[in-house]
């Protein structure tokens, strides 16, 4: 055979997989309202940047008639490419090939691209659309999952890992996304669960739809498994592109700097906080009034929204923000909000992203359900994460900072590098009403008019303690600043703290209250 003929044969062989099968796949996926694996990769990556590997990988299974089955690519596309110029390793499961089921060859393709991402120090993106384990392959299929989980864990904190759920992701398969840093879901397309509706019905007799059990809304709003929720696949890809610009390639690098921009003038810090300290406001307005171009990429927007986390830029540099949200549950810390903040703090710490904490909370949420759900254990995570973090830590106390909540929100005592407070700050062991009722219990009870006396004592406590000056007098607050000065103080802190380095005692790893 001539060389020319061999080249022609190669292109024919390649086209039969990439073009002919793609056309069939497009019909199948479209029926389910989904894009094909290939279309997804192309929509996400820069035009023409995708390079595919392991196109000709095949399974070697002979049982159950598998020897007669040709599964192109073994059901997963893997390769490298760029997003807005940022290099990434990527894989996308192909639901139209044996339901995207995971066999050993399929898994080995994924672990190979994961190793590649680790060795090259670039982010990994996994697009999941799979019916689960390939039953015909038995324990080899389980081995495949295990080898993926192992690499997810080894890569954690070394390269950013992004999971995109664009179809079913059930059973053991869900644990790969769960181990990664950011999980994206799309309404009506993503389905995640350990045991599906069928099993639940036969074993337990409970009837529930796939959507209600593990649809995108459930994962984004109730379980917190998903970090980003989108209405369409294309919206989801836009979210990923945006995220990639905020994070570094790996833990040895810093995120790229962008062009410095001023916040938009419609966000003014001086009139966001209401006079009445029992009234709420949207803390995201504060974030937008501080950050470059008033941009804020919120993570976990719909889950545990009593705390707000996400990325902003200050003079072009990425900053991770953690802020109590008075608009929801008065901004309390609880089981979910502690989990949410703690994991984000650890991500920022791993990837050299400075942390900005905005404090306005009345404390931890009381309740039997909270205590039973382990608010002690979960609440401890936020203390652990802040104390452990060695990146630059800046804290601004906007208003309430009461009790345990004050300590938890990156106080000086947990190693904050800079703590600033607005004049509206109230840094105290508890709110004036509660404190007055305890401290002046006797006076109030024995007074002729207890209500009047209570008001008097609440005012007395407020005047004395509900301000930033007690904490400032102890040096726990570095400076009391006007709201309008906030951006300048943060920029200065980042300039001064840009070389922060912490030498830690050697240990294998800490033991956080997981």
């Amino acid at each position, binding site marked *: 055979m001539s060389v020319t003929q061999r080249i022609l044969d190669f292109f024919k062989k390649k086209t039969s997989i990439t073009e002919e099968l793609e056309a069939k796949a497009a019909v199948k996926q479209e029926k389910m309202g989904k894009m094909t694996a290939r279309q997804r990769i192309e929509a996400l990556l820069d035009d023409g940047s995708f390079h595919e590997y392991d196109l000709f990988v095949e399974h070697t299974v002979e049982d159950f008639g598998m020897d007669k089955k040709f599964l192109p690519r073994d059901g997963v596309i893997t390769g490298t490419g760029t997003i807005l110029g940022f290099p990434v390793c990527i894989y996308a499961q192909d639901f139209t090939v044996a339901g995207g089921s995971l066999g050993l060859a399929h898994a080995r393709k994924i672990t190979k691209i994961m190793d590649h991402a680790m060795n090259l120090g670039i982010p990994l993106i996994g697009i999941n659309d799979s019916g689960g384990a390939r039953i015909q392959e038995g324990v080899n299929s389980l081995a495949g999952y295990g080898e993926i989980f192992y690499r997810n864990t080894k890569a954690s904190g070394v390269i950013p890992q992004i999971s995109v759920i664009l179809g079913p992701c059930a059973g053991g398969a869900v644990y790969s996304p769960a181990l990664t840093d950011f999980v994206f879901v799309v309404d009506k397309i993503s389905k995640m669960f350990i045991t599906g509706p069928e099993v639940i019905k036969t074993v*337990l007799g409970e009837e529930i739809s796939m959507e209600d059990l593990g649809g995108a809304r459930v994962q984004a709003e109730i379980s917190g498994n998903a970090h980003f929720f989108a209405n369409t696949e294309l919206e989801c890809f836009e979210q990923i592109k945006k995220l990639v610009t905020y994070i570094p390639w790996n833990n040895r690098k810093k995120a790229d700097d962008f062009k410095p921009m001023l916040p938009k003038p419609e966000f003014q810090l001086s009139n966001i906080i209401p006079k009445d300290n029992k009234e709420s406001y949207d803390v995201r307005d504060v974030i937008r009034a501080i950050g470059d171009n008033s941009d804020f990429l919120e993570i976990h927007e719909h889950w545990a929204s009593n705390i707000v986390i996400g990325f902003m830029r200050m003079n072009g540099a990425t900053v991770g923000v953690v802020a109590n949200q008075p608009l929801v549950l008065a901004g*309390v810390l609880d089981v979910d909000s502690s989990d949410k903040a703690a994991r984000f703090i650890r991500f920022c710490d791993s990837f050299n992203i400075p942390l900005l904490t905005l404090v306005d909370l009345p404390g931890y949420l009381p309740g039997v359900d909270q205590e039973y759900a382990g608010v002690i254990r979960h609440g401890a995570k936020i203390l652990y994460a802040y104390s452990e973090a060695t990146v630059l830590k800046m804290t601004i106390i906007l208003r309430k900072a009461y009790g345990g909540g004050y300590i938890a929100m990156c106080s000086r005592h947990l190693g904050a590098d800079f703590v600033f407070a607005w004049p509206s700050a109230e840094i105290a062991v508890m*709110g004036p009403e509660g404190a007055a009722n305890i401290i002046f219990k006797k006076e109030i009870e024995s007074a002729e008019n207890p209500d009047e006396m209570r008001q008097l004592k609440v005012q007395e406590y407020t005047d004395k303690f509900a301000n930033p000056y007690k904490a400032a007098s102890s040096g726990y607050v570095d400076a009391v600043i006007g709201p309008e000065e906030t951006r300048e103080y943060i920029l200065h802190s980042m300039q001064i703290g840009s070389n922060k380095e912490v030498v830690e005692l050697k240990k294998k790893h800490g033991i956080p209250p997981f």
Partner: protein
Amino acid sequence: MDELKGKIILDDTVYETNLTKKFALRQTYKPETGKEVRAFIPGVIRDVAVTTGSHVKKGDMLLILEAMKMKNRIFSPIDGKVLSVFPQVGDKVAKNQLLVEFE
């Protein structure tokens, strides 16, 4: 997603705020009376060893609840007289469903 207006009280202070869906769906705590036996896991009732009016001693078997391919024997937590038995053999029961009530 939907906004739920509500109040939360902390240290005698009432805050007007939005509630999360999870907070709004939470169940209020009811102390245990010690007179009820509930399913600790969803499953199927395979045997019922007592009827209304049965006198049982603490540790006597009340039912067998099969779940996750295991037969779980449910024993009486107290000495007492059975007021009512709710499921029959073959019934599927949900988690926390009331199975036996004592007088």
